[in-house]
């Protein structure tokens, strides 16, 4: 009997000793080879470069696992939620430049201009912008606190600040008064304060000027990373729309910064079409483009969406012409927009399907039915073909990079600044700038220009590059009856809509998650 008791007591002692260590098991760290704690992984400047690369890649891909898995943002299909695709939806679909005939969720509401605060695409854009701002904040926060102090680190921090500024530009442009989160805020779930559009404008101008000197001079950085040209373009965009954002115009500042950009990029690319091909990384006119690569950088957004969305499926010859192996169809252009082009304009890259279709499946010029895959011309501005007739490395995901800023835009902004009263550049400089863009398209130089020329030329030059919405607002054309196009406001003949559609709503999910946010008027 006694031996059992001894045995029993021994067992209890052993058990109690075991307990304390077992409770300690609850302190875990990830064991997945692909997942590490930041303090473990951030052990070199190269590791910081990898995190900075994420800030860039988040503009180009939808996830950290290639095109098909685990999107960065939730609540929307991964392809739809890709940054540049969301940007395209917001800035092209509500305008004369694009119609989409799809049935996906509320996408038709974009062109019809009847979106609501619970719209999934409006929400996706907002989420993308703040996901990007969060990534940049995280990089800046970690990099500032790191033990590595070097010119390289300083430059990387400035690049992250520049990318953050790009997203704040998108936020101020589309949403107005928005949440304001910086790297000094902790990661958590407390909603940031809302900043007024005017205050954000002021902060952005001073912020950009603050990090400007830490960026590489124009043209000095490697391809794929931003330099001072990129930061100056954001400044230019802010000045261009300052009157819309704050009520106070900044035409002089705009002209000045545009001249700085133009002087640093002496000439435009000789051939307009080369700017949108698989080897467009060769074009020095592109100040910054979001990358796309057949192997390394793949998504269902950026140029994959733009190119495949422009071809009706099942047409092998058309697909081959565009350099891809698949067509989704759906993206068309309003007849009113195409009518802005002269026949000799090299930028007039629209057709009815051309030799690739028979009469029955030929696209119509007019859009009688905006849900039809063949109502409205399509464009072949973007292609996965090279300038010498070759193809991108693969046909399923294009190599074509998507330009974010081009020098030609600075030329047109300079012209507009002067027409609107800037005194820091001359009328001659404005006309020269305008004609540089105009004649590159194979057209004759003009003797004089007015603001109507500017808005039309901006459309002709920059269509599908995600500026149209903002430009039409500045010219008071987006919601008014000054200019109407097919299916504006949801009817074929077009009609004006309420002016509150000049701003996108703060998503309802945001106003719920962050009670500090006040909704934009009209929503």
């Amino acid at each position, binding site marked *: 009997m006694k031996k059992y008791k001894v045995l*029993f007591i021994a067992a209890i002692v052993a*058990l109690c000793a075991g307990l304390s260590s*077992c*409770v300690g*098991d*609850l302190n*875990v760290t*990830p064991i*997945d*080879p*692909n*997942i590490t704690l*930041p303090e473990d992984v951030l052990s070199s400047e190269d590791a910081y470069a990898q*995190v900075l*690369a*994420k800030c*860039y*890649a988040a503009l180009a891909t939808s*996830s950290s696992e*290639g*095109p098909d898995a685990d999107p960065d*943002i*939730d*609540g929307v299909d991964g392809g*739809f939620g890709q940054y540049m695709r969301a940007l395209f939806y917001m800035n092209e679909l509500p305008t004369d430049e694009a119609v989409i005939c799809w*049935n*996906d*969720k509320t996408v038709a509401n974009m062109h019809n201009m*009847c979106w609501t605060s*619970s719209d*999934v695409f409006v929400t996706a854009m*907002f*989420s993308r912008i*703040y996901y990007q701002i*969060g990534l940049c904040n*995280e990089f800046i926060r970690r990099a500032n606190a790191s033990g590595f102090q070097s010119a390289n680190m300083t430059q990387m921090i400035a690049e992250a600040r520049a990318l953050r500024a790009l997203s704040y530009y998108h936020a101020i442009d589309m949403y107005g008064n928005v949440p304001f*989160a910086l790297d000094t805020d902790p990661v*958590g*779930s407390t*909603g940031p304060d809302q900043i007024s559009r005017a205050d954000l404008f002021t902060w952005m101008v001073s912020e950009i000027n603050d990090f400007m000197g830490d960026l590489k001079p124009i043209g000095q950085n*490697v*391809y*794929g990373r931003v330099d001072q040209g990129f930061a100056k373009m954001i400044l230019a965009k802010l000045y261009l729309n300052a009157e819309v954002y704050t009520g106070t115009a900044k035409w002089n500042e705009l002209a000045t910064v545009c001249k700085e950009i133009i002087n640093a990029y002496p000439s435009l690319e000789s051939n307009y079409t080369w700017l949108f091909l698989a080897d467009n990384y060769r074009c020095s006119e592109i100040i910054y483009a979001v990358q796309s690569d057949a*192997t*390394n950088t793949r998504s269902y957004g950026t140029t994959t969406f733009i190119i495949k969305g422009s071809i*009706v*499926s*099942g*047409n*092998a010859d058309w697909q081959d012409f565009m350099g891809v192996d*698949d067509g989704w169809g759906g993206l068309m252009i309003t007849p009113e927009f195409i009518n802005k082009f002269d026949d000799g304009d090299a930028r007039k890259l629209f057709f009815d399907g051309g030799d690739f279709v028979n009469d029955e*499946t030929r696209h119509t010029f007019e859009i009688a039915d905006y849900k039809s895959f063949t109502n409205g011309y399509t464009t072949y501005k973007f292609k996965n073909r090279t300038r010498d007739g070759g193809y991108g490395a*693969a*046909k399923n*995901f294009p190599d074509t990079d998507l330009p974010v800023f081009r020098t030609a835009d600075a030329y047109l902004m300079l012209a507009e600044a002067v027409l609107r009263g800037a005194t820091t550049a001359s009328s001659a400089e404005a006309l020269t700038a305008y004609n540089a863009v105009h004649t590159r398209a194979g057209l004759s130089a003009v003797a004089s220009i007015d603001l109507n020329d500017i808005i039309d030329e901006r459309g002709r030059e920059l269509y599908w590059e995600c500026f149209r919405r903002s430009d039409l607002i500045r010219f008071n054309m987006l919601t008014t009856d000054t200019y109407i196009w097919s299916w504006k406001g949801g009817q074929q003949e077009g009609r004006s809509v309420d002016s509150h559609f000049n701003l996108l709503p703060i998503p*309802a999910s945001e*106003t719920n*998650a*962050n009670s500090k946010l006040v*909704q934009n008027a009209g929503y």
Partner: protein
Amino acid sequence: MKRLMTMLLSIMVLSASSAFAQYVVKGVVVDAAGESVIGAAVLQQGTANGTQTGLDGEFTLTVPSASTVLEISFLGYQTVTVEAGKAARIVMQDDTKFLDEVVVVGYGTVKKSDMTGSVSAVKADQINKGVISSPSDLLKGKTAGVVITSGDGQPGSASTIRIRGGSSLNASNDPLIVIDGLPISNESIGGVSDQLSSINPSDIESFTVLKDASATAIYGSRASNGVIIITTKKGSIYTDSKIPKVSFDFTSSLSQNTKYVNVMTADEIREAMLAYAGAESAGYAALGSANTDWQKEIYQLAKSFDANLSLSGNFKIGNGKLPYRISGGYLNQEGVLKTSAMDRGTLSLNLNPTFLDNHLTVSLNGKGMMSNNHFANTGAIGQAVEYDPTQEIYDTTSNGMDGYRIWGTNGIANTQSTCNPVASLAQYAELAVAKRFIGNAQIDYKIHGFEDLRFNLNLGIDISSSNGTKDTPIGCEQSYHSQTQSGSGYHEDYSNFKKDETLEAYFNYNKTISKHTIDAMAGYSWQHFYKEADWLGVKKNTGETLQGAPSKSEYFLVSFFGRINYTYDNRYMITATLRNDGTSRFFNNKWGLFPSVALGWNIKNESFLVDSKAISKLKLRLSYGQTGQQDLNSGDYPTLAAYKTNLVGSYYQFGDQVIIPITPLGYNADLKWETTTTYNAGLDFGFLRDRITASVDVYYRKTTDLLNYTPVAAGSNLTNYLDANIGDLENKGIEVELNVIPLETKDWYWSIGFNGTYNENKILKLTTSDGPDYTGVATGGISGAVGNTIQRYMVGYPTNSFYVYEQIYREDGTPIMGAYVDRNGDGAITENDMYCYKKAAPDFTFGLNTTLTWKNWTLAASAHANVGNYMYDNMSSRYGLMSDLWTNNFVANRMQNATIANFTTAQYFSDYYIHNASFFKLDNVTLGYTFNFAKKYALNIFATVQNALVVTTYEGIDPEIFSGIDNNMYPRPRTYILGLKFNF
């Protein structure tokens, strides 16, 4: 039934002889009702000389004299001693102690009469067996409050089990499964659809379902959605035979698809195309001249067989006993969809030796499983619906691979078109080989000299692994249709490994002093869950590898728990439990404390009822308790700042250098336990010696601090959706269980079991502010266009409510395209006019089981019904658009009902597509006959029809779909089964 069971159980042959035999006793043993008792042991007292009674209750034994004392014993009866000379007719009385059934609960057992919680026990013998590959099917429709929705018709597909609705929103709603005392993880690994399928149903002795918090709280952290305790069959210490009891069964079956999606026939589509597009149209020109019923082409008559063999017995080792049971099973099952099949072998061993004068009991349980799962390309199901019936299967002019017809030009596939379903099946192969071992050793030691105290140690392990391959040939149609493959062909190897370890120990003290009984337990539990996965894809034509990253993950749970049961005079019972749970998933809020208390009043034992002949049982139960939830489906490190290395495709180039980005992941450091509080009141009745028994339970469950995957304030985190403890949810309901034995005579036995449940689920809170504009979280993805969802989590409505527009109809009842009710009256139809309309979950669920026995014949049936469940008919909404007859250069077949609505633009969000899917299903009907040979052997042969009848007004192929979205489901076939079962 009792007779039959008794006979099946009978195994005893006491072989003994006496050299001095002088007196031959012939007698019959009967019970109080006069029924013969079969298999009772008749023993010359104090010797090994004995025999057992035969089928008629008779026995013959030779003993020394007429005054020799015989001892007659049988499980469930009081032992009788009688002199041999007076043993002509022996009446055995019921052993009421035994009849007071013992029910397995968490960390111990409890007498049914002492139970205070809401617990349902189901003996496997009560269950009609069809072709059952998973234990969950056994439980279907058997108890109130448990809704089991079988996955689909795919062999081995997993069921969804919900006990009293779901208490969570984004965290797991699966109940905890405990097998032979070992809590297992319900997480399935790749290559195995159903984690439970590794348990051979024929090894199962009983289920216990713990429903209210008083019963479940002892499992604290993992019990918010109830607990199902599975006990497997074991060797019995009641048998003393050295000869093992052998049981063998074999079933063979044929399964057949009974219902097809109502799409147009070849002639109908020709007519429709003519009417819609015209004779000159390209669409009309594209039609072929064949009459192919594609759905018939992809389904087959599926054969299956299942064989099980078990041996059980009881070795004597010195003074100790070693009851054992060993069993093996093999199941080979074809699916009705061609190329789908599985086969599975199981092996199970139980050893339950006792040592040290029964002070030390050891239970060793081991279960092994190996299966081969052939997964078909289930995409063929939808392709068969949509494929043009005027086309041939083979058409070499289309230049498809292997002669299959494809849509496209010059052999280049039209990647937006429908794949040839027959080719999709033939040109895809996936095989997963899965293995699993579940084993535990339970050591129970009654302290010598202090026998009221027991110490119990349970060590368990659950290991599973699977290795699978997927293969599509180069240049086949489906490979062209994949954006990442572009016709390259594809081969993938994947592997999964999972290892869960458990250590549990507790003390139990049990003491009865006069009218006071106390049963106290205190224990500790440690669990470790580890898993890893890997896959590698290769494009066959170039050898290029596709992304694949090995992943590993683990978490720990540590708990301390205790329980006190106090009973006074078998009339008043109180149970209190407390569990403190720690999880490694919540780094900053690891611990959660979960209490429960329950009261029971055994009214029957009060003086005013104790002598009642009519009322044989009456008990009131009241309980309150809390359980926790930490299984949030978002990985094991949701509270840690972590960085993840990007995979190829998400790289970025700095100049010529390809950089592999590192992604900072979103996290919520404040995450804590979700808590469900349950109130339960129950009443148990028994009438006429329990010929009629019933239970009624009323419950209210409220979940607070919901683990909610919800939009997080923009700019505050590294993601836009985050797990956070935001929101409240409630479930309330009534459960009724009724068991009646209308007929019980010498030849007849008829039992009816009925259960019904009403459950109401509502979301009370979802976000911190719940503003009026907030339309909740979209869920319930549908097909037809990208990213569309049809359901919402919305405050004030049940989870998975449909979120739709209200359709306007013409006078003739047909819907007007795009015409919806302007519900907010702002003069425009916008998203703000959408509303919550109905939901997927049923209001009422019913189960019915009946068995009728006449002599050697048995007829049994089981059925279940749902009322108030609604379905979104995604088939009609996605295949209902007449304008898509010809679009994107291919012909797409349409539903026959498409011409009713005649929509030319998709109207996915119309409530026109939401239908009442209430149903009654006769799950199976079995007719069996038992042959008895030589009083020892029994052969039971039976025929069963499974999925025999469905009564519903829903027009789709099956009204029973858990998600409430009918979208190309793998159909559940009707199965015809012949089987035999042999015991000796």
